[in-house]
């Protein structure tokens, strides 16, 4: 019997992205540049996170025309963002045949209490997380892929590093725990007991976990791989740099060969100016995108 939208099919799609770079694009031309540079997928959106941050106002799902154009322009998978808890935006993207939906804190949340029940959809979802509890809750709702939240649109890697280290430290702790300690840990993390048992048995998260939120240079991408990310999302970092084509290629290569430091040195030479970054202490607490969702 043929089955669509099973966990294996949805999580498997993310497995195929491992070791790759997923790039934010706002039109067909950028999508083609990303594909030619070796991106494993593109994320179609109306504005990259740094522009969303600058412009303010409500950020919503992109105009379906943009997403459609991107889907026509490339043969690699196309992802798109829906607001947290926005059932209809997610259903629209699914109906359009988008390959993966990012229920994303980069957009203004539609629901401050409830995330989407993602296991009701055939299309797979990726969600952001800052710690193992958040990861567990998103997977519990049906997310098939995770990414760190980081702090989107800043070009500052510090929050992505914090989140990846946090998740991985908590995974290691669960693996090392004896089974009779797991229920208390589940309560403390706000994770289900069954989820922690699965993590302990597998010795890792049950889904792929990418880094996102602040990657601006090839060295940033390699750093996230070094810290154990399965791959990298680059938002504003590519098309807000001086030379998007070269940045895109260099970030792809640095992700593949993240421990080849001579190579990363070579491909980082004369890249031009990376996106201008933002220091965290200058962002007001209410403007931190990572605080959206729970």
């Amino acid at each position, binding site marked *: 019997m043929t089955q669509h939208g099973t966990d294996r099919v949805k999580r*498997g799609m993310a497995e195929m992205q491992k070791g790759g770079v997923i790039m934010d694009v706002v039109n067909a031309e950028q999508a083609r540049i990303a594909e030619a540079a070796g991106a*494993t997928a593109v994320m179609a959106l109306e504005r990259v996170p740094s522009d969303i941050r600058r412009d303010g106002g409500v950020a919503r799902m992109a105009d379906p025309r943009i997403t459609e154009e991107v889907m026509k322009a490339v*043969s*690699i998978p196309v992802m798109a963002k829906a607001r947290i808890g926005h059932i209809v935006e997610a259903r629209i993207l699914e109906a359009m045949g988008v*390959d993966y939906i990012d229920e994303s804190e980069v957009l203004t949340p539609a629901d401050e209490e409830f995330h989407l029940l993602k296991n009701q959809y055939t299309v797979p979802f990726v969600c952001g997380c800052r710690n193992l509890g958040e990861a567990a809750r998103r997977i519990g709702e049906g997310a098939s892929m995770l990414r760190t939240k980081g702090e989107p649109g800043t070009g500052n890697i510090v929050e992505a590093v914090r989140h990846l280290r946090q998740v991985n430290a908590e995974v290691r702790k669960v693996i090392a725990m004896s089974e009779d300690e797991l229920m208390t840990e589940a309560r403390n993390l706000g994770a289900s007991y069954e989820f922690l048992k699965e993590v302990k048995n597998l010795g890792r998260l049950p889904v792929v976990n990418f880094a996102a939120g602040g990657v601006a240079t090839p060295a940033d991408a390699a750093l996230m791989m070094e810290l154990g990310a399965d791959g990298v999302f680059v938002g504003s970092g590519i098309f807000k740099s001086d030379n998007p084509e070269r940045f895109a290629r260099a970030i792809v290569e640095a992700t*593949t060969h993240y421990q080849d430091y001579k190579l990363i040195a070579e491909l980082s030479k004369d890249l031009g100016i990376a996106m201008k970054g933002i220091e965290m202490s200058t962002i007001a607490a209410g403007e931190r995108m990572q605080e959206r969702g729970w």
Partner: protein
Amino acid sequence: MKRVGVLALQGAVREHLQSITACGAEAVPVKWPKDLERLDALILPGGESTAMRRLIDHYGLMDPLREFAKTGKPMFGTCAGLILLAKTVVGSNEAHLGVMDVAVERNSFGRQVDSFEAPLEIKGIDGAFEAVFIRAPHIVSVGLSTEVLCVHNGKIVMAKSGQFLGCSFHPELTEDHRITKYFLSMIPHKSDLLLPNRSIYSKV
């Protein structure tokens, strides 16, 4: 012990390495041309074929991979790996390695929402094999020397052509290692390979 490489540029590398180990062979990730030395066989994993191709070109792996194919050692491509091996890619003027006598069409079952799993009857494998298809290609046509191993809904999804094995789906995403075992059984005994200047498959 048999040494089996997995092209480790991108994609489902870990799963193939684990499957090889589970079958009692030594698993070797291949990132650079030198990693191809002393391998008995090579797996090209699932992932994104366009991304893998770019990295193959950039790191000068294309010629070494074709040379590897010329030694007659078995090569197995799953999904994107099958696309890399195929002689013809529908809608593209140029093949990638272009060594396996099949023509493949990319994303031929549709987009991700059309991805599926289904039990398959595969020639040479006893009992159904639960196969996971993700934005999968299929084999449109095969050469005379190619043996079709599995057809699903009228589409060829697995075939063997001499030393080359290819499938549309992802055996590495399941705990079922029978296809990896099947592939390992294609590795000739060392003594056969010592014969000068001939592939044992040239007779087939």
